[in-house]
């Protein structure tokens, strides 16, 4: 079976989906496990998401956690619409 490499947007969507599936907040270790990326690569993407305001970093009981923001929800919805459009019209 040929495994297609994920594009940049797909990786971002996968990261956001992982956070969304965990009720909108996730620990960095869980995110690393769910995103299927190396630590360095994940941090690169986390920086992008923080910069674009899609997620935010907060301390909960002294532990770092990532929270999904409205911008992240909007991106994920738009990405899923594009994917459905692409699949439905055979693109």
């Amino acid at each position: 079976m040929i495994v297609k490499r994920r594009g940049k947007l797909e990786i971002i969507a996968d990261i956001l989906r992982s956070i969304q599936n965990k009720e909108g907040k996730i620990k960095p270790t869980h995110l690393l496990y769910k995103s299927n990326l190396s630590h360095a690569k994940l941090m690169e993407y986390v920086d992008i998401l923080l910069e674009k305001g899609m997620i935010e970093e907060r301390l909960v009981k002294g532990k770092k956690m990532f929270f999904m923001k409205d911008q992240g929800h909007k991106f994920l919805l738009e990405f899923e619409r594009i994917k459905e459009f692409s699949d439905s019209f055979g693109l």
Partner: protein
Amino acid sequence: MVFESVPYGPRSYVFSPKWFYGFDSIIEFIAVIVSILLVYYSYRCFRLTKENKYLYFSTAFLSITLAFIAKIIGTLAIYKPVITRTALGSTIHQTFTSLTPYSINAIALIIHFFFMLLGFMILFLIISKLSWKNQRVIVLLVYFVFLATWISVIHYQLFYVTSFVILLLVTYSYYQNYMEIKSEKARFVLIAFGILLVSQAFFVFVIYSKTIYVLAELIQLLGFIYLLIPFILIFKKKPKRVK
């Protein structure tokens, strides 16, 4: 009814029964709206993802939009010749004195043939996953579009037969896509193209009966409505909010 404005030159065709005059233009206007929605959204997808497949899809439907606009103008020139007496119409008429409603209709139909075939061909190229690496194949197919348009000017049926053949291939690709994706929206796209395919088959025989033209137009309308359904379903999707 076939009107020949220039011997062996472009012909003017009106297949509609008199009572249906204008209704076909409304149907084509609905097709224009659906096509514009697809052009707009696929171009937006291209802007967001920078993936060329969306740009090509947008171009295909832009071509189909132009084709329908040309047909609307061409038929309205015959249905409502009073348009030529409006300020804009009379200015055009004074500039191009040889333009009669029939010659406008004939020219508009050539534009309709060309852009419709080009749109369907681009659609076929995208869903066949042909890339620019297959340049020679693409050039050859575009040449066939020119050739088919040229011959269609004399034998209009060739246009509908060619559209039918391209749409048959497009529909088959959408059938394969549906078998792979198995989604409700992919099924609607398959049904839409299947219906448009049937409408093209009806259009081939419009010369024999005006009723066939009415049926073909109504089937075409149904096809475009079905094409709109998956689009609406995609946009009905609500954002998932976390408390």
